[in-house]
């Protein structure tokens, strides 16, 4: 039995060596993707192009523009003279936001019963920068508001004490995007790599026509499954180690929890995805079909992992679905160990869920694939 499994595994590795781009993609595709995501999100959103239409042209309006620039969220694209320019620029996607200062801005600010107004236009087609722009503008306006109130109540700034919250961000003190995105991307890349690679295991031989020959040989279905699974496990796990080194050493994502625990759980998770991939593989007639199925499953899983949108804000029914998606629990575990230093005492609900789902999926896959091969 062992000899036959090894013969099959050896054959699979020869295929990989001949088709070098495939393992290269498996090993380094994820790393490259991480590098791009990590670098792009390493710093908070800044330098959003801003246009200003200043009808007032007063000291007050200039100071407003300077305050906005000082947030570093904005960079002043241009001071313009008419609204048409702003409209054109927004349509072209040249700017993220525009501020229109009315002619009576300084006057209203100065008057004791004044009611200063301000228009802001955001490019909602790109919601993430738009949200960041809104937040920055609100911050500037809030502080202007505070100054206005102090002035109107005729207080000295020292006397005024407003609401001063003390904010502390745990696990990611600088609220760095990279600390959030790279572990999640890494987790998802592991899923995609394993699924895709496993999905090629049988669909490839079916497409080439060699599967029949394999089934006529004295391999048991279990031997075929194990022989085909070993290369997938080796490559996917190596990929994981490479990606982990990358996020840790290049993007300074901490590993606060136990590394052995992370490896054990990564291995377990990998087996679950392997099972799924092999099911996709035996139902596919060609590699292309297998690939498209992986894409479909992968993208669906992705929606439920909580990476794109928090699971907590999904409708009840979708939250339930999210809980039966292994990738969701895997991302929680991965983030928990890396960023929070969590151990089994905290992670056990996710580990248990992963174990139950995993056992179910693996049992089903094993039966399904064996039946398909027999």
């Amino acid at each position, binding site marked *: 039995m062992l000899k036959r499994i090894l013969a099959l595994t050896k054959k699979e590795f020869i*295929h990989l060596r001949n088709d070098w781009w495939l393992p290269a993609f498996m090993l380094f595709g994820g790393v490259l993707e991480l590098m791009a995501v990590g670098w792009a999100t390493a710093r908070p959103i800044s330098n959003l192009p801003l246009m200003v239409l200043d009808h007032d042209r007063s000291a007050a309006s200039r100071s407003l523009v300077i305050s906005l620039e000082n947030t570093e969220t904005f960079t002043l694209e241009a001071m313009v003279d008419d609204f048409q320019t702003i409209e054109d620029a927004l349509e072209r996607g040249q700017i993220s936001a525009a501020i229109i200062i009315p002619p009576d801005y300084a006057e209203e600010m100065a008057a004791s019963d004044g009611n200063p107004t301000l228009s802001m236009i955001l490019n909602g087609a790109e919601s993430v920068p738009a949200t960041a722009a809104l937040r920055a503008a609100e911050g500037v306006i809030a502080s202007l508001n505070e100054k206005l109130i102090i002035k109107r109540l005729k207080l000295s700034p020292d006397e005024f004490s407003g609401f001063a919250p003390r904010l502390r961000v745990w696990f990611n003190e600088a609220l760095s995007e990279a600390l959030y995105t790279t572990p999640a991307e890494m987790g998802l890349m592991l899923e995609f790599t394993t699924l895709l690679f496993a999905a090629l295991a049988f669909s490839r031989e079916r497409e*080439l026509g060699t599967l029949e020959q394999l089934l006529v040989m004295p391999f048991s279905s279990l031997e075929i499954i194990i022989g085909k699974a070993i290369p997938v496990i080796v490559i996917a796990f190596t990929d994981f180690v490479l990606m982990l080194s990358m996020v840790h050493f290049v993007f300074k994502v901490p590993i606060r929890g136990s590394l052995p625990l992370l490896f054990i759980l990564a291995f377990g998770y990998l087996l679950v995805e392997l099972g799924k991939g092999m099911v996709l593989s035996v139902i596919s007639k060609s590699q292309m079909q297998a690939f498209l199925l992986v894409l479909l499953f992968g993208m669906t899983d992705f929606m439920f992992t909580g990476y794109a949108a928090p699971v907590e804000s999904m409708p009840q029914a979708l939250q339930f679905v999210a809980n039966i998606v292994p990738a969701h629990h895997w991302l929680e575990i991965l983030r928990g160990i890396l960023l929070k230093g969590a151990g089994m005492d905290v992670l056990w609900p996710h580990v248990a869920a992963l174990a139950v789902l995993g056992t179910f999926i693996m049992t089903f896959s094993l039966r399904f694939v064996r039946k398909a091969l027999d």
Partner: protein
Amino acid sequence: MTPAIITNNLTKRFGDFTAVNGINFEAKRGEIFGFLGPNGSGKTTTIRMMLGLLAPSAGDVQALGISVKGNQAELQQRVGYMSQRFSLYNDLTVQQNLQFYGAAYGLNNTDLKSRIQDALVMAGLEGRENAKTKDLSGGWRQRLALSAAILHRPELIFLDEPTAGVDPISRRAFWDLLYQLVADGVSVFVTTHYMDEAEHCHRLAFIQRGNIIARGTPAEIKKNMMQGQVLEIASSDAVNTIKILRAAESLDLQEVELYGSLVHVVAQNVEKKKKDIQKLLKKEKIQIEDMAVIEASLEDVFIASMK
């Protein structure tokens, strides 16, 4: 000795479609059994059932005296399978393919070494062990596939269209190998649609739309299946000869077919109709260069029986 293969009312249905309709035949040991039929006639379905890759809807198959159903593990060791296009991994070298076969069948290293050597000699590939299989021409690849399929010394070997798309000289060499195997006592089951190959088989079965319509030795089949004799005509205009003869109802000809540049006419008492044919063609200004009654080939029989 029990026959190499016995099928008993072997049937396969896919929904409403009956691919193989209760076929019965027996292939003797140490013989080449040819399974003939047009594409889509049920040849591959039958071979898949005999290999245990597909469960029959009804009936059963015995190979080497044991039922295929439930004895796959034993039969896998005693049976070989080869299809010309799909038996080998193209990105593996000759040596790697043979090694994979050997290891899959559990040969130990010393056996494997000598058998790989034998296989290389048989395929004529000594010195090309490290060539990629995809770089070999069709004939070499086919001989390699056969050598690989018999590496574990099976008693019975299934060949599914082994010579499809291979040049005549390579096909000839391949059949020489098959005769060699049979001389060593191996039983061979081969599907083909090449008529010249069918003539080389010891025993044949014709399958059409899932039914066996003829079986026996090539000579028996020719005798039993052919109603009438074959007249071969070489004329100045073969195409018009066919048109004219097909239109001539009074002659009562069973078949008029183009055979290369020749025309084959099948009819009862064809000798007596020679004169009328001559007369008819002369009237149409077609010159007859040669005309003779010949022995029917399997192709004549095949075409006649397919109608």
